[in-house]
């Protein structure tokens, strides 16, 4: 446990010494403020302007889902950037020959940050959401968001050679989150074309409020993580 915590400690220290990553940590709070107070205000203005009773309110759940995703994705983006910096510094391979090991390294760089982000996402969404959430649904959605973000971090690290490429890959990896919008804009069965994306099932879960969608959400997320982990571990050496 001591090596794992030490390894996590140096991960945090690297984030605090990097202005961009430090700013990324505050992005979820900023998003929460904008969504909680900005969206209803803009909605009211738009409704008055277009003389409509409802405009954005139908999509408040989508804003909440976005908010719930932000802590996990920001944490995993920071993880991927630290992983790439450590790879440049030959640290990733070196950690594998210390008591931290490859598994401990993965835990301290991906699983621990994603776990903390999971709890933070629950808290943030609970206190800043625009719609009402049942706690079990919120926990399930936060879990899927954490897993999807972990898959995104693995994708960024596995297919980038340095931080610059990592930034570009982060944009591609964010396509993983397009699944969030499918249940809101595609009412027919066409929406299931997005079924290979974990976030699609998270959105279905929140939209339909049915725990039935948790199973495919977990299976799809774990398939992504499993497939990318092999490449990740190979890249560590």
């Amino acid at each position: 446990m001591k090596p794992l915590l030490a390894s996590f400690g140096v991960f945090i220290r690297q984030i605090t010494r990097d202005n961009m990553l430090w700013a990324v940590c505050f992005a979820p709070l900023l998003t929460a403020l904008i969504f909680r107070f900005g969206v209803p205000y803009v909605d009211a203005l738009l409704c008055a302007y277009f003389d409509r009773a409802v405009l954005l309110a139908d999509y408040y759940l989508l804003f909440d889902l976005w908010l719930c995703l932000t802590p996990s994705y920001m944490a995993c983006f920071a993880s991927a950037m630290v992983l790439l910096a450590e790879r440049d510094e030959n640290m990733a391979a070196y950690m594998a020959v210390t008591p931290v090991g490859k598994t401990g390294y993965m835990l301290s760089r991906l699983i621990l940050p994603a776990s903390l982000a999971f709890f933070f996402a629950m808290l943030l969404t609970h206190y800043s959401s625009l719609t009402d959430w049942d706690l079990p649904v919120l926990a399930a959605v936060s879990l899927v968001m954490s897993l999807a973000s972990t898959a995104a971090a693995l994708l960024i690290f596995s297919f980038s050679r340095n931080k610059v490429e990592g930034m570009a890959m982060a944009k591609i990896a964010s396509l993983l989150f397009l699944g969030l919008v499918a249940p809101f804009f595609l009412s027919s069965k066409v929406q299931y074309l997005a079924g290979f994306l974990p976030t699609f099932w998270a959105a279905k879960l929140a939209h339909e409020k049915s725990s039935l969608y948790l199973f495919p959400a977990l299976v799809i997320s774990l398939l992504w993580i499993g497939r990318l982990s092999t490449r990740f571990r190979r890249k560590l050496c």
Partner: protein
Amino acid sequence: MIRVKQLTFSYTNRPFICSMSFDVREGEIFGFLGPSGAGKSTLQKILTGLLTNYQGSVLVNGVEVKARDRGFYEEIGVDFEFPSLYEKLSARENLRFFASLYKKSRDPNELLASVGLLQDADKRVADFSKGMKSRLNFIKALIHDPKLLFLDEPTTGLDPSNARRVKDIILEQKAKGKTIVLTTHNMYDATELCDRVAFIVDGSLRAVDAPRSLIMAKGASIIRYTFLQDGKEQQREVAIDRTGEDELLQQLLKDNRLLSIHSSEPTLNDIFVEITGRRLA
């Protein structure tokens, strides 16, 4: 300390390391010599557990590397060829961090002083020169006082005086009973430091013996001498075990007419070329 039996490893379908077997005894400095791409670094990765999909048996400190646990690394120190350090942290912060990963550790200041980095201890590693990074990387492997050290080209990029410091520390570690596996293509380091060396070419061992034994077994030393004849400097050579038969040399000695005389032994590089047909560098 290390027992390797019938080790075979491949990155692709073709074997990269073929049926390799050797032992490294406790307390010795064992060198792997070979040209780039021979398999030295791959072998080090297997011995340190970075690559585990090998065939055969690799016992390190009594543990089959495939079945190692985290405790395995408490007694192993690794110095990779390329520095692995946190550039945004200072030298002292780096050493403190690495020390925190182990159950036991040495004083970072003592280690920094041993390689002349104490006055730069609080400088960010990003501001270090290549040689300073190499020295810091080297002492990082010693921070937990391991029984077994894997050193990959530890003197590369160092000026002669710092290379001497590092070599002296390696010899001190040996004197303390530590086992050291040295990977290098520097024949002078290998000759000076290693109790035994293994020649590796194309993923297989071509010879394992003490450097001196390899040199003496494969070629006799030669004596070269020069003298003046008809106003011109002439050079002759004779095998050291045949000097008694060289009448000219006897005569020149008797007449005090020698201009210079040197003995010349084959180097480990010469022996390597003779055995493997390849060059080290």
